[in-house]
């Protein structure tokens, strides 16, 4: 078996860290800790992007690593923490989730994601192709998190984590998307989070807590 180069080992390590963090988010009930985990995921993502940039000489990936660092490690967590502080929900946590069951479903999803990624990974000629399965698994775990959570803010963090997974898929399979697209995606994410900020205040003004459990109206059709 040929020796695996150091950078590939590092990327595989960071991929494993990402997956671990995705599981940690799945099992975390406290909102503030969720934000810390999200920031950590962003840091791992930025580091892995920078390593891919260094290993392959793709200049534009340095920019995208910087963008990730700025947006996902600094700006977004800052906005979210401020929001939580102003809404005075620092000590909110999710009561109604069954963590062991969610974790088991999560494991099944990871196996499924790895199987789905096998045919694509065989075609990839990038140094990081083995990580595509992990990226897909991160996306699915975040999806699961969004489904199981009741609080609006945890759903948002699930959504942002899903975006992290997609971004990791883009770097691991293809050396990143063209810069103009990455900038557009970053803009969408930022605007999305700002709109959410507005939303939280609307929800708070109208409803008692930032969850929709008390809002289930009887609908005729869904």
């Amino acid at each position, binding site marked *: 078996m040929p020796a695996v180069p150091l950078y590939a080992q590092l990327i595989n390590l960071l991929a494993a860290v990402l997956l671990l963090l995705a599981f940690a988010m799945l099992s975390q009930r406290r909102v503030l800790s969720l934000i810390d985990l999200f920031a950590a995921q962003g840091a791992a993502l930025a580091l892995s992007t920078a390593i891919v940039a260094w290993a392959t000489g793709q200049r534009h990936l340095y920019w995208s690593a910087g963008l990730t660092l700025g947006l996902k490690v600094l700006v977004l967590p800052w906005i979210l923490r401020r929001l939580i502080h102003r809404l005075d929900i620092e000590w909110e946590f999710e009561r109604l989730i069954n963590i062991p069951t969610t974790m088991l479903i999560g494991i099944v999803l990871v196996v499924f994601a790895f199987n789905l990624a096998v045919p694509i990974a065989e075609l990839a000629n990038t140094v990081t192709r083995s990580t595509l399965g992990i990226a897909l698994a991160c996306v699915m775990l975040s999806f699961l998190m969004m489904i199981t959570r009741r609080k609006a803010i945890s759903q948002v963090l699930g959504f942002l984590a899903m975006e992290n997974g997609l971004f990791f898929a*883009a770097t691991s399979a293809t050396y990143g998307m063209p810069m*103009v697209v990455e900038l*557009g995606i970053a803009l969408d994410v930022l605007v999305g989070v700002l709109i959410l900020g*507005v939303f939280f205040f609307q929800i708070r003004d109208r409803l008692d807590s930032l969850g*929709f459990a008390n809002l289930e*109206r009887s609908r005729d*059709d869904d």
Partner: protein
Amino acid sequence: MIEVLAVLVIPVVGAALLALVGDREHAPAINTATAFATFVAAAVLSLRVATGGPLLVLDRLFFVDAFNVFLVTLTAFVGFTTALFSRPYMRIEQHEGHVTAPRLRLYHGMYQLFLFTMLLALLTNNMGILWVALEAATLTTVLLVSLYRTPASIEAAWKYFVLCGVGIAQALFGTILLYFAAEKVLGIAGGALLWTELDRVKGSLEPTVLSLAFVFLLVGYGTKVGLVPLHSWLPDAHAEGPTPISAVLSGLLLNVALYAVVRCKVLVDGAVATPFARVLMMGFGLASVVVASFLLLRQKDIKRLFAWSSIEHMGIVTFAFGMGGAVANFAALLHMTVHSLTKSAIFFAVGHATQKAGTQMMDGIRGLVVVSPMLGWALALGALAILGMPPFGVFASEFLIVTTAMRDHPWATPFLLLALGVAFAAILSRIQPMVFGESNVARLPHRPAAIPVFVHLALVLMLGLWIPPFLAEWYHRAAALIG
């Protein structure tokens, strides 16, 4: 090139201007004027493309061909007529204290930005920008859905935001896979996300990857089209927002999302030997038609009724694109046009009708024709048109789709006919007492907008009787492109 830029820049300038003007008296006039200027620019652009062939401008960033140019013109046109309608409508809403001044500023600015995102999605040549623009279209409308700040509208907006966000995230994964497959052929610098380049090399793209990519793309963009089972945001978002927004969501956004699906389908059809993409689209389309038509029977809220009808019609169009071939594609393009015109006309009439009655519940709206013959007839004619009664245009397109289905896919015909029949019974039985019968509705403080409704219905009637040669030519060319 100047025309393409004009179509995109005018709405952005208009949005900035409207943000500055705020809620002053002439804000709705500026909104209408900007939408009109966009429409003129779009008309000039389509003239250019009709005479000079496809355009590829600004370092291959924008691409205009027969397929997207007619959607650009349609989007700009309905954007303009909806702005006309929104003027009296929002004035009445303000008069009744449903919206405050700062919210009107938000409403007007976001309306123009929404038009911009849709036009960008249509004109861009880059599959990544297409994704960005469609996500931005959600973001610009999400605060408009919650404009009234009622608990129900906030819940609807939240659902819209989260479901479309998750959906569109799947589409991003699909786009990444598409890029991954294309980069092998075109290289990193070869513009591997440009549709024109992808179209050129589609035969040599890796079929397994493209099949997988299409599943993600269809699920992602299909969420925005409102295909069953990804539709659950759509009735809420249409029912709770202001009616002009329901009109543009139903008449325009669904079309643009479907446009994205069809662009992807062209690539996948070229790469994969089996009719994989077609079967998927036919399946999703047929499921939407059948499910939506049965759920029409259970609606009590008039805006929800027509929102479900949009799901049904988008299902018909998706099914027709799935069948493929010259006739089905022609019919699908025609159906996109007439559905968009008819549905926005219906929402214009419904908007004023609900203002008169003070409720969206159909039981509370009675005898429109007694108090306001204009609104009553507009609703009655709109309903007949959307149900596919001859001589309206919807009849022509549905007839072509059903006959093509009979010839190529006979198994699907009973489902289609059953669904159309159920939808007919459901909508007609609801509309009849609302239009005729004892009246209970009040007068409005401002004159309702009559022109946009009847212009749209007249156009739909015309398309049923006679399709202008230049339009038929466009449809034929676009149908050939889609294959």
